[in-house]
């Protein structure tokens, strides 16, 4: 925060009463103006971004309206564009990712926050932070060359034979598809769940755990029935954060999802996500409506992540504040 409440030794009388030019000669005012311009640029850029997304999708929005979100057809040949297959793909892959990542991530966070001695907890957290720094395209490499073959040879047969009667596990499988993309996404979002959940769990006041132990709880009981519920809002926030990340993930998903705008209940089916269709088709878009439909997809993606990130932030702040002040009256 600004420390500009104190009077400076050489500032002279209060700034309001001096002429603008004389204030300008004072280096501080120039510094203030210059840095203010930079700060304003940030706000400007953000506003400009939203504006550009909005205006560059105008044609498509005018043509399709809100139906855009629920139309299945995406056919550049007849200039018909509907976002439904991509929204479906984005949501399904994200759901699969969360189903895998949330239990694993919360379990790991519990271990790091409640069980591991501080040095081990910090070391492991360091590795988790490194994992979060791995770029998307590297996860894509792993996806294409390791997980896709694994899917074809091990996972598909393993799930399809016993459970193939369920719509989720019907074949055939080409290795790529919703499940593959979901698995890769899961690996990518686990670090976020772990980092935030661990911090949130660490902020739960000691005496909650102690009260539970003092009543004769086992360590697991005190963790699961008292500490985790205390932190549950923040943990939920970490899940929202992970979801926001998963929604916007482009490269790794593009490389393993199959890139066909299909809506299918089967997890082994190839599909497409909002981010990956933009990535694949943007440079090949001919015609204004085509391009603007893709920009509109970008706008949709922006709104989804905007809302999720906002919710996540609120949830996390609420929990870490709760930890520091249970009302005592």
């Amino acid at each position, binding site marked *: *925060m600004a*420390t*500009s409440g*104190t009077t*400076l*030794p*050489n500032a002279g009388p209060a700034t309001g009463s001096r002429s603008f030019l004389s204030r300008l000669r*004072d280096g*501080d005012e120039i*510094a203030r103006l210059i*840095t*203010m311009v*930079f*700060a304003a640029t*940030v*706000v400007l*850029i953000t506003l*400009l*971004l939203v504006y550009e*997304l909005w205006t*560059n999708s105008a044609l498509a929005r005018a043509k399709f309206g809100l139906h855009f979100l629920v139309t299945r057809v995406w056919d550049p040949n007849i200039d018909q564009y509907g976002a439904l297959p991509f929204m479906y793909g984005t949501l399904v892959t994200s759901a699969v990712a969360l189903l895998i990542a949330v239990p694993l*991530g919360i379990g*790991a966070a519990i*271990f*790091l926050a*409640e*069980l591991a001695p501080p040095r081990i907890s910090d070391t492991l957290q360091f*590795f*988790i*932070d*490194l994992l*979060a*720094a*791995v*770029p*998307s*395209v*590297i996860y*894509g490499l*792993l996806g*294409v*060359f390791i997980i896709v073959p694994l899917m074809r040879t091990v996972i598909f047969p393993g799930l399809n034979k016993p459970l193939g009667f369920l719509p989720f596990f019907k074949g055939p499988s080409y290795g790529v598809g919703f499940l593959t993309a979901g698995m890769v996404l899961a*690996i990518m979002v*686990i670090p976020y769940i772990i980092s935030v959940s661990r911090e949130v769990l660490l902020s739960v006041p000691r005496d909650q755990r102690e009260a539970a132990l003092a009543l004769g709880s*086992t*360590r*697991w009981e005190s963790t699961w029935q008292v500490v985790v519920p205390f932190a549950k809002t923040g943990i939920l926030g970490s899940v929202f954060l992970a979801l*926001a990340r998963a929604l*916007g*993930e482009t*490269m790794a998903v593009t490389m393993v999802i199959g890139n066909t705008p299909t809506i299918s209940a089967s997890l082994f089916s190839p599909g497409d996500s909002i*981010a990956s269709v933009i*990535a694949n088709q*943007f*440079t090949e878009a001919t015609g204004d409506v085509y391009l603007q439909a*893709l920009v509109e997809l970008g706008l949709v*993606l*922006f709104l989804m*992540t905007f809302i999720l990130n906002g919710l996540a*932030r609120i949830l996390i702040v609420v929990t870490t504040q709760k930890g520091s002040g249970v009302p005592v009256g």
Partner: protein
Amino acid sequence: MSARIKWRRFVSNFMLTLTGLCALVSVSVLFLILGYLVFNGGRSINWAFFTQLPKPVGEAGGGMANAIVGSAKLLMAASLLGVPIGFFGGVYLAEFSGSAVASVVRYAADLLNGVPSIVIGIFAYSMVVLPFRHFSTLAGAFALGLMMIPITLRSTEEFLGGVPRYLREGAMALGASKWRTIATVVVPAAYRGILTAILLALARVAGETAPLLFTAFGNRYWSEGWGQPTASLPVVIFNYAVSPYEDWHRQAWAAGLVLLGLILIINILARTILSRGIAVPRS
């Protein structure tokens, strides 16, 4: 001990072991990735990789010199855009602004930070590619630079704000003006944290692919100046990996190893040596 207590203790030990397994699995992914990259990419790292241009499609051999140089140019230009805006904006927030304005700027930065990188690419396309009518290094650098702003800004604000009052007051009591105090006392006191954040931001955008797909686009040859499309490591990895050529796959692994190696080294250095004793921003 009663049977019930025995059971509860068993459950407790079992579940806690399970959480340990979760942690182990999560952390070991990092080492798995590194292992695969070293194993598959290690043998393809040679002098040719670093110095030669890509060979025509279908021919074996060649290297990624243009992609490496392209990435370097992109990162350099991105820093020139992103770091000053982030840094001076952070100075404004920490030293000059009122709390209302500060909240707005911070909110904008957080918003920008959360924008998916492909959407940043769309923005850069409309701002830089469309007016000039072709893909360019500049456009790619614009996209990457934007992504560096939020981290730089928040960290600058945080670390400047963490400089203790008495340091500032000491300088001002000697007659230094505010801006001089900031430039000669406050910033030097906070530089390590800020530098760490900048390095981490750089490491993050070094691996970004999506925003480059339709800004810098790609190039099988050297890119002249700043107005031409350019190859970059992440985009080449992507293109090679999804291609049908064995030899390109091999090169993709090698490039992946180089890229990740660089990113991890920057991260490790920034998080350990540079930031001894100070809290480091999470990715």
